[in-house]
């Protein structure tokens, strides 16, 4: 019974959202406002039960981890600009956040992107099939010409200009692939909703 009610609510809200394709209307507005309200409520619960309670209050009150009060204090300093006399204290949490973020992102970029991706361009051109050699040449040229496009210390004229133009072509092909995938994603979402309406709600397929 509960399941059936849930399916009906989801179906009616889906149709209400799609009614916007005709024009803005009260059904769409109701569905939109319900979505905003439910999302806000859902995130409030998630933030309490998954962040604040297990990481702060539960260790603080039930496991005697009194030192958890320090991150709370640092966090509260984010509100320091509200009191002009101590507004400078916001630098403490900001510095802390910047330091952590820099450390994480430097590791992420160096360890995850720069070195492995650079290594991946050292590809064999001999002792592999003709198709693999062609693919490898294409990857190597793609990397070189795209990098030339992003070399801004010299005007893009002459051989550098030709290289940059070829780089643009490589990027355009990549953007085209991304655009194709984006269309596929949007269509898939629509298929998902239509499948729900026809299978779960109407039961015709």
């Amino acid at each position, binding site marked *: 019974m509960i399941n059936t009610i849930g399916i009906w609510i989801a179906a009616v809200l889906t149709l209400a959202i799609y009614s916007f394709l005709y024009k803005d209307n009260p059904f769409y507005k109701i569905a939109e406002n319900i979505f905003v309200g439910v999302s806000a409520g*859902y995130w409030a619960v*998630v933030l309490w039960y*998954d*962040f604040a309670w297990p990481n702060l209050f539960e260790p603080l009150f039930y496991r005697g981890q009194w030192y958890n009060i320090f991150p709370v204090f640092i966090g509260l300093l984010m509100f320091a600009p509200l009191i002009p006399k101590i507004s400078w204290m916001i630098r403490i949490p900001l510095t802390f956040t910047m330091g*952590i973020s820099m450390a*994480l992102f430097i*590791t*992420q970029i160096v*360890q*995850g992107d720069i070195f*492995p*991706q650079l*290594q*991946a361009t050292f590809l064999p051109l001999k002792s592999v099939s003709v198709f693999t050699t062609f693919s490898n040449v294409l*990857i190597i040229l793609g990397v070189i010409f795209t990098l030339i496009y992003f070399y801004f210390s010299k005007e893009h004229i002459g051989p550098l200009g030709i290289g940059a133009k070829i780089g643009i072509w490589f990027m355009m092909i*990549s953007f085209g*692939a*991304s655009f194709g*995938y*984006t*269309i*596929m*994603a949007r*269509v*898939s*979402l*629509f*298929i*998902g*909703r*239509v*499948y729900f309406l*026809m299978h779960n709600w109407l039961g*015709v*397929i």
Partner: protein
Amino acid sequence: MLVALAVIIPMLVPLNLPVDITNPVKNVYNKIESLSEGSIVLVSTDYDPGSEAELYPATEAVIEHCFRKNLRIYMMGLWPAGSELGNIALTRIAQSYNKRYGVDYINVGYRPGGQVMLLCLGRNFGDVIRVDYQGTPIDSLPLGAAVKSAKDISLVMTFSAGDPGILHWIIYFHARYGVPICGATTAIMAPQQYPYMSSGQLTGLLGGLKGAAEYEALVNKKGRGLRGMDSQSIVHLLLIGFIALGNVILIYQRKKE
């Protein structure tokens, strides 16, 4: 209206168009096939209802394959709603294979903290996970007690719709701990993952609903992925027609001017 009809009609009258299996999808399948019985696969459902249409069919197909191979599943989620969605598929398929909770599969639920959490998780699971999604102490469950660090995981399979997601698994579990990573992503994210596949950081990839459909074909299970492929193909043909028509009209107008 034409797009809507192109989606609805093939669903009512299936055309059963062929689905080619691409190498990235085959790689995921082969990786799971290569694992020995009892190996632990960490399944991370890093998406929300907004991406359910693309990623849930892939979640079902991969879980089905894992249980068929008698692999153990350690499920978690980097997105709050992801672990709930994953749990629906996990419990349903586990029941059909008579798998026991805590022994053959486990769900530790949503784990907040993104990359910082993953960094700690790889070193010591106990630092991050003390209870499962129902609040049961993790050490009281045989599978929970068996996983101490990234070394105990044979494969990470992430179903990813954004950040945190597949990129962080690659960086923190592959680059740092050497765990093989396979992924299923939304179609929008798929092109960004190809450089990671060519560098060997990512073993295999299911891109969008098409990837899920290919996987369903491989494991011989007709689900939402394969059912949606007829509509997907017809809409793509329609859009190619629109693009061609638009360009013909543009060329005609330019000539007229």
